[in-house]
């Protein structure tokens, strides 16, 4: 179980996350929603260990964020994070060297499916190809927690379908997934739980059926961030789809 307790992240001039408490049960697919700047990426970076909370605790199955949890978390960021000297093959080797759950054979298959050449240098890749590479790397890991930051952005329809299929397969295998996206329509039928952030605060969190209550996810999103007037929920909001 992923647990955030009173997590706040402040930078010099702004608060990216403000006293967020959240629990995501093992084996659930959770959609992290909110407009740009709401704190979604910050939350993922805190969980990955790329950033440190100003206050509060984050635990994965009771363990604080550190090398042990990094081995069990797969994170797909929105940005390119590869060294320019690397080829697509080099990055696969790097992942195989450091992550025991990385499946090199699956990686090669995904590269073929995504029409990526192992010999290509990172600097030669277009933004779409780089996005496909990031997806291939994340999906080639059998991590306990998989986090995707905008996985459907910048990729073609075929790749989007492949990604959604992979998320569906991951859900069936009992993996915990945290996905941030603006394309709510495409992922609506694969998610179990929803978390809404607004200006760093937790607005709402819970099981999809319970929260949507007959509305589409898009309508709910518009209610909260558009013409809606839904306020901030109290602390210790537990995400429990069975409630």
């Amino acid at each position, binding site marked *: 179980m992923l647990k955030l307790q009173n997590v706040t992240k402040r930078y010099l001039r702004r608060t990216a996350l403000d006293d967020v408490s959240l629990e995501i049960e093992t084996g659930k697919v959770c959609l992290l929603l909110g407009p740009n700047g709401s704190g979604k990426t910050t939350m993922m970076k805190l969980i990955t260990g790329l*950033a440190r909370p100003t206050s509060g605790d984050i635990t994965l199955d009771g363990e604080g964020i550190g090398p042990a949890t990094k081995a069990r978390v797969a994170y797909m960021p929105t940005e390119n994070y590869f060294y*320019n000297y690397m080829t697509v093959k080099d990055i696969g080797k790097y992942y195989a060297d450091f992550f025991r759950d990385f499946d090199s054979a699956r990686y090669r298959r995904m590269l073929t499916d995504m029409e990526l050449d192992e010999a290509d240098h990172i600097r030669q890749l277009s933004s779409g190809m780089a996005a496909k590479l990031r997806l291939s790397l994340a999906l080639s890991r059998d991590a306990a927690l998989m986090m995707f930051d905008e996985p459907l952005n910048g990729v073609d329809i075929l790749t989007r379908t492949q990604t959604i299929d992979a998320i569906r397969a991951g859900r069936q295998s009992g993996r915990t997934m945290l996905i941030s996206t603006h394309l709510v329509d495409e992922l609506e039928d694969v998610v179990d739980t929803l978390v809404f952030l607004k200006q760093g605060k937790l607005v709402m969190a819970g099981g999809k059926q319970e929260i949507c209550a007959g509305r589409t996810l898009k309508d709910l999103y518009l209610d909260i961030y558009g013409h809606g007037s839904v306020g901030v929920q109290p602390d210790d909001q537990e995400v429990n789809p069975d409630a």
Partner: protein
Amino acid sequence: MLKLMKYEFRKWRTTLLALLAGLVALEVGFIVGLKLDKPTLMTVCLSLIAVLTFAAFAYLTIAGIAGYSQELREKSGYLVFMAPVQPISIVLSKLVFIALVSLASAALFGAAGYLDFRALLGKLHLDTQTMNNMNALLRFGLKTDATVQQILQMAGFVAVSVVLEVLLTMCTAYLAITLSATLLQNKKGFLRGLISIVLFVVLSWGSSWLSQKLLYTRIEFGAEIDEFRRTLGLSLLLNFGFCAVFAGISAWLLDKKVDM
């Protein structure tokens, strides 16, 4: 840590190959001059090798420090900091790798230069005379009854001292960079670099001041070699201690405070 060092090597592979290619080119020029009896060509190549000895060392050390700073600022740092490794392994892998390659390059260029120098002296029939003059200068300069063995031991100490000085400079720079990344968080640009430099100067001055306070001994010409060696030995231990402390603090800050 060894895996991280492997990827450091791959990152620096092109630069190291370029330096090696430069050395090979100059050596080829020197050998061509030697065979064709062209002392001017030999002297030019030897002079460039001497310059490259220091330039390669300085470039690799400075670029290694700048590379660490860059990794904390750019997204490529995600690759290292997402890996399930201890922060101290990240710091040490970079420090040790750059210290090793910069010293190895200086040693390689220096050795090539020394051999070429001997060859040039031989070509000009000056080698025996020149070495005798150098030995006499050495004895005159030290004004002591020290034996050759003691002089060589001291040279060994000095060599280790140089290595530790290089490491200490790098550890100090790494700590300065990590501290500025901690203080300025996600700020980039000129200010972060300026703060790093200021912190580097303060930390360097502080460690030097502390060394002076703890180890102050007057060393005069003609002083016993043993006393000089004892003081130098203590200085080496102190420098090693500073390296360990600075590297440890950098690792702790990376673990607890620094955001990518």
